[in-house]
């Protein structure tokens, strides 16, 4: 009898935990959730104006997690999500990236280096952009996309399509740094 009650209580507790986590996962998949840290406001605003945001062309909108988490498998997705969440949480409270100047250094460095650890994943892009050669794709893209599809290059989508997520982000942070220095 005791075992049965223990089993039922355990089941209920697990269920509640599962729904809590699921709702958290669901909520944290929205841009609004990402934006709850003020560091992300710039990225939200620039995303809104970009090709994947709300303002441009009225095409399908891609949320933060659609690009910034890998979409290879559910476990990989959740693991990367947990890791990224923890990383950003710690970074927020340590004040590691609390000025536009620090962000400017970071984004500039990313621009200059040829191979950098991806923060936007091709598996995300390819969820929607399935066709890379063919109808609707400009003729001039064939050469590049062929090399990509044949695995002749290690370049990722954003190596070339740099401004699709947040426009000219270096320029944005340069402007913000200038404003801050002027104000301060």
């Amino acid at each position, binding site marked *: 009898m005791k075992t049965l009650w223990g089993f039922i209580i355990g089941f209920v507790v697990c269920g509640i935990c599962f729904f809590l986590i699921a709702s958290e996962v669901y909520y944290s998949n929205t841009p609004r959730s990402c934006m709850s840290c003020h560091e992300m406001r710039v990225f939200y605003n620039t995303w809104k104006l970009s090709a994947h945001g709300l303002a441009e062309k009225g095409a399908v909108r891609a949320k933060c997690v659609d690009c910034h988490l890998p979409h290879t498998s559910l476990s990989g997705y959740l693991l990367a999500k947990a890791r990224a969440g923890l990383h950003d949480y710690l970074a927020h409270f340590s004040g590691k990236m609390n000025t536009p100047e620090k962000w400017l250094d970071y984004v500039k460095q990313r621009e200059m280096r040829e191979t950098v650890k991806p923060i936007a994943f091709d598996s995300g892009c390819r969820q929607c952009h399935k066709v890379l050669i063919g109808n609707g794709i400009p003729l*001039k893209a*064939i050469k590049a996309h062929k090399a990509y599809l044949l695995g002749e290059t290690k370049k990722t989508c954003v190596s070339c399509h740099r401004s699709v997520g947040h426009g000219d982000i*270096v320029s944005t942070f340069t402007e913000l740094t200038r404003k801050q220095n002027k104000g301060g």
Partner: protein
Amino acid sequence: MRERLFKVLALLVAPFLWVSLAFADYYPNLVKTPSLVIKRGFSKQALECIQCHAKETPGIVLQWKQSKMSHAGVSCYDCHVVPKSYPSAIQCPGIKGTNVYISPLVSPKTCGKCHPKEVEQFSKSGHARLASRPVVDVPKLKKLQFYFEGGEFAGVPKGDAKTTAPRETGCIKCHGGKIVLGPDKRPISGWPGGIGTRYPDGGVGSCVACHYRHTFSIEQARKPETCGRCHLGPDHPDIEIYYESKHGQLYLAHGKEWRWNSAPDAWEPGDYEAPTCAVCHMSGIGDLSTTHNISERLYWDLMHKKGTLVRGVNTPKDQPERGYGPRGRKLMKRVCLNCHSRLQTDAFFKNLDNAVKLYDYYYTKVNAMLQDLKKRGLLKKDPWSDGFQELYYYFWHHAGRRARQGSAMDGPDYAHWHGFFQLFQIYKDMEAIYKWRITHGKIEEPSTVMPTAPE
């Protein structure tokens, strides 16, 4: 009365003169068809660039319209438009006041967006970082460019613009330098530069060093004269060696009839009767695929002082771009085997190896003499007014390379008369100076060397 008439006439003529002068300045390139109207295949902004530049710089647009780029729908916009934050982003008069920014400089990073494999291979070759190393990274050679060649030693003030002339008109045109931008983000030095140019966006190399803009013709890049722009002259007469070789002779006789535009990897014997520089060092031939890493098929390093430098084996470890020695020999032999028997191929490389080893024998002895004089304090501080050191330079940098490269590419006159024949004479002169200094315990005066290089 007459004077007044002249004044009135002058006043009448002046505005016309001013307008015509202004226009002369505004339209500097006057060709017969200054306008070009295209209505298909390009975005509105791209068409604006094309049509404006058809008037402003018609020569460029005329080249572009005959290129494969224009056929593929690649226009000014695709290579020259950059984000505002790009280091050399500027606005030409046509786009002032818009959000569009352009860069006149196009780095290999841009080319690599569509040609990633080619740029990645090229970056791993001696044509990239190592090409501009002597101009940008080696202090001794910077002194040669500014202090000696730039005339500082003869009284030209340090920092005077004249001192930059040898570097800007000579060195960087082939080697490439580091591009320096002015406060208006336009280049003030280093551009347009040669094959190892270091761009402000971090890109290293220059695709247009071989694929001339704005036609980007594959025929032109495959012709030996393109390589010959830099690989010529007393220190590495590679185009001269090629012309002298049997391969080059066939090129000179029948090259005009060869097929130069077959697709990469499919340009094979039959399209040509004999190889050009590109065929052996880069092209897809037989079972080899095309490579933009020109170091890949090489065994010996025939550029530097020491003779027996096997690439990747006893070349500096921090310079992996020098190549992969034994693998290089294997690959090059596979190129030869497309037309030659194994017997002839092996015999050719055996002769080359003997030539390299003979040069190295001489070099080792010459270097021992140099080190001995150095130890005894019998070398002048300024190598360029010291007969022994000048001869040492011509020994390895000119005659030594000619002997080795002549042997490597079937240039008998360069292997022999401009090579080993001179090496043994320079050797004897150096030995004589060496012995004199040791016997007398001092440096001879004046210099025993003729003022120009031994040719």
